[in-house]
């Protein structure tokens, strides 16, 4: 049951990152692919009012985490207090910039909200990337199973670490790069004209850059946390997730070669999904490594809620997921295809 809930939690967080990550990527590329106001409106319209649907995955992840692993939620959220507050503020500003930007006719205001949109998305991609880096590296857990991370200390990866160090910064940058590639792929599907051409060009280059970056991150991870790579070797489920990743990569290549944009997006979604799920599977049964004393690490069983709670929740979670997927299927038709700036909406009202 604990493994099941660990899987559900990983699935939900991964889905959030894959879905909202493409909005981060779109935000990062906003100024690069769109050169005038009309093009910028097109980019934001590509996200449309579904941004709140994507954020629901984060809300759901938070809910599932506190329900299934209360101790993990308590330790990690309070330990990364300031970083999480920054994430919250960025999410807030990002949401406002999507909603407000298109409704202010003044050009200076539009440019201002575009800037807010770009910066909040860049920061979100960096922070989520760094957060994942911290999960891989571990945190300075004490004997009570809590910790408090400053933003950075001496950039070392042992002992009294900070949020940023020579491992988590590259991971964060890798996250930015991958999500940007993902966002560019999404834009190729949703846009037309010059934005489309720039997105196609960028997406290709970015995906090529992802390959060496991925190798570097893997090598760094091998240095920092060899347990993770050992976990991949012994846990057959990671072979399945890696297969998803490889199939995704093939779809990306094939999609770009034959201008099948939908296929490329599906592929890039699978690549991200595969990488993140492989990482999550390799981590199990540990949920938080300790950088101070290897024995202080927290495992999923240490953090899990009692069996009955987990059983009850499993009984309603699967039907709820099926419902959520149904909504998406029903609504997808409504948002499919290329965006049309003069017809499509950019937000909720």
């Amino acid at each position, binding site marked *: 049951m604990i493994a099941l809930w660990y899987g559900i939690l990983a699935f939900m967080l991964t889905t959030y990152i894959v879905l909202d990550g493409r909005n981060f990527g779109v935000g990062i590329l906003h100024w690069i692919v769109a050169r*005038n*106001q*009309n*093009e910028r409106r097109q980019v934001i319209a590509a996200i449309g*009012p*579904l941004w*709140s*649907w994507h*954020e*629901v995955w*984060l*809300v*759901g992840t*938070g*809910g599932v*985490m*506190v*329900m*299934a*692993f*209360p101790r993990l*939620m*308590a330790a990690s*959220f*309070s*330990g990364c*207090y*300031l970083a*999480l*507050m920054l994430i*919250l*503020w960025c*999410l*807030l500003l990002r949401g*406002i910039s999507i909603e*407000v930007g298109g*409704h202010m*006719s003044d050009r200076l205001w539009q440019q201002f909200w575009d800037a807010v949109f770009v910066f909040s998305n860049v920061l979100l991609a960096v922070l989520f990337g760094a957060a994942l880096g911290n999960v891989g590296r571990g945190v300075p857990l004490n004997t009570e199973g*809590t*910790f*408090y991370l400053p933003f950075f200390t001496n950039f070392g990866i042992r002992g009294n670490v900070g949020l940023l160090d020579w491992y988590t910064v590259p991971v964060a940058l890798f996250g930015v790069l991958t999500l940007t590639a993902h966002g560019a792929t999404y834009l190729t599907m949703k846009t037309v004209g010059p934005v489309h051409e720039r997105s196609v060009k960028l997406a290709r280059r970015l995906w090529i850059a992802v390959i060496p970056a991925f190798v570097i991150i893997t090598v760094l991870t091998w240095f920092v946390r060899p347990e993770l790579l050992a976990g991949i070797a012994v846990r057959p489920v990671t072979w399945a997730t890696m297969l998803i990743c490889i199939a995704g990569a093939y779809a990306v290549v094939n999609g770009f070669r034959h201008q099948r944009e939908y296929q490329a997006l599906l592929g890039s979604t699978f690549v991200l999904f595969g990488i993140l799920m492989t990482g999550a599977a390799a981590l199990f049964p540990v949920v938080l490594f300790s950088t101070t004393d290897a024995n202080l690490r927290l495992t999923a069983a240490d953090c899990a809620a*009692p069996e009955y*709670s987990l059983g*009850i929740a499993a009984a*309603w*979670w699967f039907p*709820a*997921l099926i*419902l*959520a997927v149904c909504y998406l299927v*029903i*609504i997808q038709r*409504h*948002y499919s295809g290329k965006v049309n*700036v*003069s017809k499509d*909406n*950019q937000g*909720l*009202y």
Partner: protein
Amino acid sequence: MENTLTDPAFWHRIHFGFTITYHYLFPQLTMGLAWFLVYWKWRALRTGDEKYNRAARFWARIFGLNFAVGVVTGIPMEFQFGTNWAAFSKYSGAIIGQTLAMEGMFAFFLESAFIGAFIWGEKRLGPRTHFLTAVCVATGSWLSGFFILVTNAFMQHPVGYALAPNGTLELVDVGAFLLNPWALVQYAHNQSAALVTGSFVIAALGAFYTLRRIHPEQASVYLKTGTLVGLVASVLVAFPTGDSQAKMVGAYQPATLASMEGLFHGERLADVTMIGQPNVSQQRLENPIGLPGALSFLAYGTFQSYVRGLDEFPKDDWPDNIELVYYAFHLMITLGTIFILIMAWANWKRWRGRLESSTALLWVLMLAFPFPYIATSLGWMTAEMGRQPWLIHGLFRTNNGYSQVVSSGDTIFTLIGFAGLYFVLGLLFLYLTGREIYKGPDAEHGAPSHQEVPA
């Protein structure tokens, strides 16, 4: 006395209190508006009268704006369970996490999937499907309210739990937890209050347009629907829902009831105080004017019922700010009574066919809309301050609930950050809402305007 600036418990409480109070200004309107939208869509479907579609279209925009602010201010609420209230999450996560996760999975997915289609898809979807999206959005918003109130009700009156061997709480009876009697009463009370907010806002705009002599057809729809629902909802808030809520408090939180009424010494024939200020150091009520026996009757059913006073509880279990609980509760009751009077007046005028020509009444309706917001905030203050010193009543104290690793300085810093961001957000919200109101319901709601700007 301890220095407040370095007291983390205090700042964590202010942090949560501020962000939740601000957040709830928006969902109460979306929950209040949701069924109006459904009703207007249904009327349009039945009668084919375009004015109902126009009303739904206009208020859908206001709904969307409120929904967006509700989303961006709501996400911090969920995070704060972990960031600011880590010990509480660790202790009770297995239980409160159920409803927090259900809210996301059942309510938010539904609401946020269909809201875009509801606000933008009228032409593409056709009238019937569009009506269904309105139902989905309304259902989603009311479901999320239910799950949050079940969570809160567990903190007010914990049921269905057991103490696990590791000292945390575990769920033993999910049915009892979800159908907590406190939750059902509180939900009814809270949702009626949301309808009061919605109907006062709608009626206020109707009054505004009428006084300005613009959009007469729409103004009359708003005034008619707003005042009718407003009267029903204002009565429901007081009776039976408010009354049952007070009985709940009397049954399960007697010390809270004593604080709400400033009753320091227990008695039979206990008064409901109309006027008076509690003096906690002297343990008495200053210049009290009350209805004799009313509290005994309202809380326990007979005038002779004994109501326990604060002196019967250890001081450690007293709510830690009795004056605030007392004032919040009394002002809420006063406002609630005034709402019934205003709406009764409006309905009487409407029945006589003089609503639109009665200038004084229109002014009152127009200026009344902030007060339901104040009343709901006061109600929540009564509930949450009255529950103190407990985080989970009788089980877990607030002072044990906050994150030990987060310093008071960090909390103050982020509180100021939220205050600044929310101030800007409030300005933007008022500006955009004001603009919609000036554009009015008869303006075409085209796709995002101002796109013609070439580079």
